[in-house]
């Protein structure tokens, strides 16, 4: 019996400290969402990496496709005016 065939796949997101975004850190297998949350705690926060966790059914994630890359992303390459590169970030803003 392979657990991968029996158990659902979940994606794990960890918020490392208050004020920051949740970041995708990996995935895991679990029977249901409740167990996934516990395993996320056990597998991804054991070195004090987080203060908040999200788990999401991997099958609920809709992802862009490789073949769409040209039409999705290339059109942005020649629009540098959209980048805030000339903007001086105040010192008080740590995370942006």
């Amino acid at each position, binding site marked *: 019996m392979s*657990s991968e065939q029996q*158990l659902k796949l979940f994606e794990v997101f960890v918020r490392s400290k208050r004020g920051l975004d949740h970041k995708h850190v990996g995935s*895991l*297998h*679990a*029977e249901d969402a*409740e*167990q996934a949350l*516990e*395993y996320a*705690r*056990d*597998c991804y926060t*054991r070195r004090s990496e987080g203060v908040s966790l999200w788990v999401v059914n991997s099958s609920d994630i809709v992802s862009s496709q490789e073949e769409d890359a040209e039409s999705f992303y290339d059109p942005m390459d020649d629009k540098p005016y959209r980048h805030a590169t000339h903007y001086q970030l105040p010192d008080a803003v740590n995370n942006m």
Partner: protein
Amino acid sequence: MSQPLIDYCIAQGDDALIFGQRMTEWCYSAPFLEEDLALANVALDLIGRAQMFYQYAAELADDGRSADDIAFLRDARSYTNLLINELPRGDFGFSMARFLLVDTFNVLYLEQLVDSSDARVAAIAAKAIKESRYHLRRSRDWVVRLGDGTQESHQRMQQGLDEVWGYHKELFIVTDGERELIASGIAVDREALYNGWSEQIDAVLAEATLQRPEDGWKVVGGRDGIHTEHLGHMLSEMQYLQRSYPGVEW
């Protein structure tokens, strides 16, 4: 006054160390990777708890022994852990049944131990209660999941529960030394926790569609150093390095 407290700390440490060491046996052989890591975390929580109790005992005794000496240089007869902690690993159902009985007890016990009149004991309890609440969340979840699962998981969960049941009585036996400490507000009256424990266990078993085993048998003796045949084997493995290379360090 001090000797009962030293004995008490060593007994609490022994409970945690022996259970923790036993549960490390799941490392690399749990049903799947995530559970493997989760079980190892629990085992390490318990071993850390033992370290804190031994450390305090070593400071109180002040006889030149370190926490490590207490853990690694005693024979089975000197260990005072309750027997439920030393029983062989068993299958996953047995392990989860044992966790449920012990975790439920630990949460009830530690909830009161945080108010110990001994500041150091209270501090250890304050750290341990957070861990034990999580342990209980896990074991309760597994017992319900397996008990109310497939026909085979139900049967094996029930069997594990039946096998471990007679060892729960010892959780509620107060030793003479402990009685002194209860009187001075240091230790918790474990006997008084039985009804609350029993109700909580019944609730979980009902949800898990499991039968509460009959109370017809019990095995006791751990606090007196009277152990099952399993402890010696475990200690020989656990203590091998310190016994073969005394004083060896990383």
